[in-house]
């Protein structure tokens, strides 16, 4: 279980990026964080990855507090961030160097087969397309068999078809390990395609505005009525999150300048 409790982040210059975030995700659940630019989605993910420190509240995974990079947490960044001096296979195995050789090789082989890149094992990252590189990045994160997988808009720079294919690759690999997935996205379709729950965020300061369960069976068909309904619900929640808070609206209506 991933638990974010009263989580807050204020930068040294006083900017409040996140305020009072409370979130729980169960084992094997895919949770999407969705919201407009500047609502603190990536900040939240970086805190969960232990790459930044919270200024308030706690993050815990199965009861253990996360205060820095953790062996049970893996991250896939917005860009593939493959190490160009390592082959595709060595990139996939980057985080499992400590394992016995046979075990390491078997995990790499299995992951590469799962993402359809088995024949690319000995190539350099430069020889792969953007989509292929991102598959390798996902495989690199999942071969460590994390309890929590953090995805920071890893598909945002890809075209729609590559993205759909990568959703498939992600779900394939996720099936093997079934970690909690916390993914940041600004794509409503993507959230409905992948997530079991979507957390809609609002900005200034970043906080959770609404929480919507997505109960469609997988694989999800994007033209189905249920899919379209969930997309609509999520869009409405996002629209609402973009509105100023009630008190501000009331003040505006009353003609107050503050």
């Amino acid at each position: 279980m991933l638990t974010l409790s009263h989580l807050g982040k204020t930068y040294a210059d006083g900017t409040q990026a996140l305020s009072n975030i409370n979130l729980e995700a169960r084992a094997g659940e895919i949770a999407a964080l969705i919201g407009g630019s500047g609502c603190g989605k990536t900040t939240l993910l970086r805190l969960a990855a232990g790459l930044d420190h919270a200024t308030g509240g706690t993050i815990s995974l199965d009861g253990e507090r996360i205060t820095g990079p953790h062996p049970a947490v893996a991250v896939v960044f917005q860009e593939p961030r493959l190490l160009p001096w390592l082959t595709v296979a060595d990139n996939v195995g980057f985080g499992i160097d400590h394992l016995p050789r046979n075990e390491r090789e078997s995990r790499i082989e299995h992951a590469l087969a799962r993402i359809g890149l088995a024949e690319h094992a000995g190539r350099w990252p430069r020889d792969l397309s953007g989509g292929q590189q991102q598959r390798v990045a996902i495989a690199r994160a999942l071969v460590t068999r994390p309890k929590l997988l953090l995805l920071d808009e890893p598909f945002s720079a890809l075209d729609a078809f590559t993205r759909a294919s990568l959703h498939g690759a992600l779900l394939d690999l996720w099936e093997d390990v079934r970690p909690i997935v916390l993914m940041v996205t600004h794509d409503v379709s993507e959230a409905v395609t992948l997530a079991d729950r979507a957390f809609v965020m609002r900005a200034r300061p970043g906080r959770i505005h609404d929480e919507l369960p997505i109960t469609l069976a997988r694989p999800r068909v994007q033209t189905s009525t249920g899919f379209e309904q969930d997309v609509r619900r999520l869009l409405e929640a996002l629209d609402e999150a973009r509105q100023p808070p009630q008190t501000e609206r009331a003040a505006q209506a009353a003609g107050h300048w503050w």
Partner: protein
Amino acid sequence: MALPNSLPRAADTHDDTATAAGSHEPAATGVEPTPVTASPASGKGWFGEHLALALILPLGLAIGWEAAVSFGYAEGRLMPPPSRIASTFQDLALYGDLWLHVWATLWRVLVGFALGAVAGIALGAISGASGLIRNLLDPTLQALRSVPSIAWIPLFILWFGIFETSKVMLIAVGVFFPVYLGVAQGILSIDRKLVEVGRAFRLSRLAMARRILLPAILPETLTALRSGLGLGFMFVVAAEFMGASEGLGYLLVDGQQMGLTDQIVAAIIAFALLGKAADWLLVTLTSPLIRWQDTVRERL
């Protein structure tokens, strides 16, 4: 944009299989990605073509000057024709001490290069990795970097004597600065995002240095070593001017004192060949280490 009706699985789609070679195959065809073929740059024909191009200018000048001297348009006293230089070169190689001089120079450059490179890499790495050490060291080293090589000679003779040590130290100083600068700058310009990958995988400081920082700065380090080696060959001349009894620099001084222009030119050519051979050897030995680089070199 409409998305596919059902989500395809990675194993049965090839919609993002474009390779760096630029082949984009539509998903429907299921065509495998184009294997990356050996670059034409590695072909034998390419090498011959480049060698021929590289030889046009020096051969043209040599033939022109030979003809000018042969037909009496030039005297060839201050700048001897290629035939006379070749003959001097041959005499030095067969009956003189050319190999002794070449070896003396080469030994000095190699030892000086090794000392300068090790010191440059060590201090460059420390300076690049620590802001405190950088602020402490860098201003002084940058000031010393601009001191001309000749200026060190009197001091080095007083410190290390007239024999080998002062010569080797002078070369080491010449090699040190470009290597120091290249390594320090290399570390400072490492992509922050790659370091973050190391952090996300909880690498220790040592593992971070071994698995991320060192490989990342390898291209800059090798370029710095090449610059250092080139400067090593420049500094060896200055070093051998300070009272050497052997070495290609000595041949230059001896040629000047005896008015032997052909010997001077032969020594200069020997320097050029030796420097080029050393550089080629360095590049050949180190290029497999950076073959992962995605550079434009093979395409030019």
